[in-house]
């Protein structure tokens, strides 16, 4: 005798199932079609040799501090995220020093993109006191939308001036970076990206304004000095 169950498996016609499969396969094809392939940049610039050891009034010196890392994790993550990293310290003849960190990546994707300093510093035990927007007017290119941070850990305060360039834009936060990558990605473009970060350790937050000013001068000179060799790596093209 057959056991009667209350549940009756519905009839699914071959016509319907074919339509479902067709829609699914169409989605797979559409995904392939929409995958961005146009790289805006084809080669990774050799920043180690391009960034001069001396420019304007600034000259590279031996690093007195270990700089705060460029990711929320360790070095493995940095090599996964960035194609090129430069970390140096520069000083002028007055004895002002600025730490420079540049991280360049040829491809920016939703899951692999530049880590922002406000996240990295906090992940590495710093407290974030302030983040303010600061437009830097660089004579040789269009204004750069930069950010200023004041952070501290138990040993020191640090002032940070940085920008993140993704393609031709300077997104001010993680969300606008994502939207930028998504918008251009749907047009088929794979954007490159760079983090340019200048930082100074200070003992008293009262000195922050002075430090930011020095960093801004430093960054303007850096961009001006490297503009002929790499017109659109540190900054977006005019």
């Amino acid at each position: 005798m057959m056991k009667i169950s209350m549940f009756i498996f519905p009839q699914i016609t071959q016509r319907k199932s074919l339509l479902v499969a067709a829609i699914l396969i169409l989605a797979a094809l559409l995904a392939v079609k929409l995958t961005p392939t146009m790289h805006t940049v084809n080669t990774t610039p050799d920043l180690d040799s391009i960034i001069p050891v001396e420019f304007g009034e600034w000259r590279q010196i031996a690093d007195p501090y270990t700089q705060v890392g460029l990711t929320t994790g360790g070095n493995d993550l940095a090599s996964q995220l960035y194609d090129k990293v430069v970390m140096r310290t520069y000083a002028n003849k007055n004895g002002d020093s600025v730490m420079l960190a540049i991280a360049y990546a040829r491809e920016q994707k939703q899951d692999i993109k530049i880590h922002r300093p406000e996240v990295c510093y906090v992940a590495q035990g710093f407290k974030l006191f302030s983040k303010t927007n600061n437009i830097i007017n660089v004579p040789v290119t269009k204004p750069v939308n930069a950010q200023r941070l004041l952070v501290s850990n138990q040993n020191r305060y640090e002032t940070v001036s940085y920008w993140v360039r993704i393609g031709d834009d300077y997104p001010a936060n993680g969300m606008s970076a994502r939207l930028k990558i998504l918008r251009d990605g749907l047009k088929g473009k794979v954007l490159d990206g760079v983090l340019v970060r200048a930082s100074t350790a200070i003992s008293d937050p009262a000195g922050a304004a002075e430090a930011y000013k020095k960093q801004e001068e430093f960054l303007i000179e850096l961009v001006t000095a490297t503009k002929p060799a790499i017109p659109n790596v540190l900054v977006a093209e005019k």
Partner: protein
Amino acid sequence: MPLLPLLTILLGLLVVYVPTFYDLFHGIWKTDQQAHGPIVFAVALWFFYYKAKLLVSTRIPVIPAPKLGWPVLVIGCVLYAIGRSQSLYIFEVGSLVVVLLALTLMFFGVGVAKHFWFAFFFLCFMVPLPPSVIDIITQPMKMAVSYASEHLLYQMDYPVARNGVIIYIGQYQLLVADACAGLNSLFTLEALGLLYMNVMRHESPMRNVLLATLIVPISFASNVTRVIVLALITFYWGDEAGQGFVHQFSGMFLFMTALMLIIGVDSLLRYITGKLEKRSVVAIQG
């Protein structure tokens, strides 16, 4: 029951999701932050099966809802195409939930979809959240876990110090990473806990609510346990041993600790509610 239509649909699903799962298993699911992914996926599959078996004995009528199913299917497919092409996992993996829901609606109807609601909900925990979202939400949890771990180790007379989420023990330093305090592990544990309750089918709603709330401190406690175990392994056997532990066992260890705590707390709650009920029965009889 003709098999061919089912196989046709299965083929469509495989074409769409085999590449996704290939990427998940070879990429993000291998990272500490998302290591729970495959566990959640396996449990979700089992849960679908479990619910399907129950379905046979229920009186839920099958009233296909194609008018609802087709649009949902199209939405799922668009999500998939955008997510897959722009490497937005939240859309790409999330679309699986939408597509499965669409197929259920289309062929079985709203009643059956409701019967499976928890399975669909549980499947959402498999979707990898963007790292930036995890970073923002896990920061307070990481801080709290670091703080508690440092203090407990200090009470046990170990040479510890802490700077933010970095714990120093002896000559070593440990960064309390997302994996050690992850929102994802909290979410996943909450999901596992809810699943446990769903399967155990407790009568007492009070006990369910209590248990669901207690999962947060349980998750916290298991995270602290994991960090302390990791710190001690590093302290006694060196950095390499600690790292080895991180990459091989610590995720499992976390889940085992949490699961045991959940079962332990649940048994305790059952014991207490049992006692209370007995007492009230006695009171009524007396």
